[in-house]
């Protein structure tokens, strides 16, 4: 592997890792704070990608906007959807066994998948990146790197910084951190845990949908994309330590690197590498790399 290829793979692995982080951070939030194992999280990623495909013409017609208008529109929609979903399907499940929530989210996956199939069909679609991000940067003589992938990494880094700020510097972040440690105590301090949960859930849904939307031009839009990302995001969350956003970031970068370089160096074993890594890490540190907090 020469230097240029290595560099491109490095950029790819960072971009993939950051994108995984975006999906996994929502998962780890919902997981760590609400204790909900949300199998439907991958569906939100899938829905986001389909929104990037389906909303673009609608938004262009109504407000005349481009890519960013579509993104903004999609985020608003997914926050509202997340808020309503929590109210309709989760708000009464917290006192029950965790596995009941798992079953509920499993049912939701089936429903979302089939609704998607009814509304948009089962075809694979491409989504063009916005014109001013469509070019590539030359690397060396033969290689070049698409600007849009750099844009993805940039957005993810900005969001990661934003989340770090919210968690460590704001009152809301304090409540969320407290809620993940002791739900009852937070409630008894007079914080409306129900609304907090609903907001966290809506934010998690929005993060997954946003990841789907910005990933759409790179990965294209296809029916099984949610499932594929779901399992790998669970791996990220668990390796990082449940509820730890910092852990999720490191684990996502690690998984991104292992997966990307695995596909290049050991194509026949690429699928299994991620799981070997997870098993090894959990046997070494049974509660993930970082505990929540």
């Amino acid at each position, binding site marked *: 592997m020469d230097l240029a290829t290595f560099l491109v793979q490095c950029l790819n692995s960072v971009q993939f890792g950051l994108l995984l982080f975006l999906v996994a951070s929502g998962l780890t939030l919902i997981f760590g704070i609400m204790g909900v194992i949300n199998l439907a999280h991958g569906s939100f990623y899938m829905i986001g990608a389909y929104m990037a495909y389906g909303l673009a013409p609608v938004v262009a017609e109504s407000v005349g906007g481009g890519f960013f208008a579509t993104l903004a529109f999609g985020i608003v929609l997914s926050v509202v959807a997340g808020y309503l979903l929590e109210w309709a399907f989760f708000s009464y499940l917290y006192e029950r066994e965790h*596995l009941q929530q798992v*079953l509920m989210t499993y049912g939701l996956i089936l*429903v979302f998948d*089939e*609704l998607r199939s009814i509304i948009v069909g089962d075809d694979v679609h491409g989504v063009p990146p916005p014109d001013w991000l469509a070019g590539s940067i030359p690397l060396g003589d033969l290689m070049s790197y698409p600007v849009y992938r750099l844009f993805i990494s940039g957005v993810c880094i900005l969001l990661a910084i934003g989340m770090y700020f919210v968690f460590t510097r704001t009152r809301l972040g304090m409540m969320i951190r407290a809620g993940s440690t002791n739900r009852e105590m937070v409630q008894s301090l007079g914080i409306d845990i129900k609304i907090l949960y609903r907001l966290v859930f809506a934010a998690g849904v929005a993060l997954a949908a946003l990841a789907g939307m910005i990933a759409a031009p790179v990965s294209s839009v296809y029916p099984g994309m949610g499932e594929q990302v779901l*399992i790998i995001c669970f791996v990220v969350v668990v390796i990082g330590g449940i509820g730890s956003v910092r852990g999720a970031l490191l684990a996502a970068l690690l998984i991104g690197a292992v997966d990307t370089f695995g596909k290049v160096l050991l194509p026949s074993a690429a699928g299994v590498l991620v*799981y070997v890594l997870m*098993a090894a890490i959990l046997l070494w540190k049974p509660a993930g790399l970082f505990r929540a907090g």
Partner: protein
Amino acid sequence: MEVSRAAVVLSLAALAGLAAYPLVASDFGIDLATKILIYAILALSLELLVGQTGLVCFGQAAFFGIAAYATVRFSPEYDAAAIWWLLPAAVATSAAFALVVGALSLRTRGVYFIMVTLAFSQMAYYVIHDTPIGGGTDGIYLNVPPSVAIGPVSLVDLSDPSQFYYVALAAMTGCFVLLAVVLRSRFGRALAGIRVNEQRMRAAGFPTYPYQLAAFVISGAIAGIAGFLFATKDGFVNPELLSWHLSGAALVMIILGGLGHLRGAVIGAFALSLLEELFQSREFVGGFADHWHLGLGASIIACVALLPRGLIGLPRLLRARLVGARHAGAP
């Protein structure tokens, strides 16, 4: 685990109904019922871990699939293998895998345990999928079903669907009774204690690790019986038998049926498979059958929302509604 007399009577009635079923059923019906009975065995094996021991295993399909592959691989290519050694060999393979997975996974707890068991089952999936052992995506065929014979006398012809149905029914009943006995033993009580409070059990002097590991191996072995039956029934195995979708479906079965009861696992296996069949059949739902996931998903959601204790809690819920008893809802 107290079982009411009504439950025993109903279970025996259900068993009698299942035994009489081939007399009235079509070929398709027998095939479907056989498949469901095999899934019921898989669900029972998982119930031992999840419902009774409190270990949520998300890799049950690996034990199922490994035993199925072992069944095909151990059989001679153009000859029938005797079931007397083939079944134990297949079950021993999955039990051995369960021993390794359990010994390592039990270092972790809770969600981490779920994910480690998933990781090991995915490893098994990729080994079967990508190496010559498994024969790739297309799977491999079992040309001749195993023989069930004592000396020259053939007892059961496994290639006959209705005879196979009775074998599956006997196996399911056998596993059910075996688990019921195990759970009533001192060992089973210890497992229940571990589920409720592991720390306390350890403080009471029980080494919890060997108990959990034993439960894990028993569960893997029973899943292996289901895998053996599955491979023999269709004469065909493919990597999808080890996929996490099947592990997930088994979990859905036991939660849907009602955790904490062996009956729940069987009820759940029947409910999920029949719901799938219902929403896929054009006679009942017409063109909607193309979108059968929607109906299935919606019914699962409705079950969770309306039945906190799973399907097994339905009679009590109805009784509470009808009689209006104040205490009927209490656990």
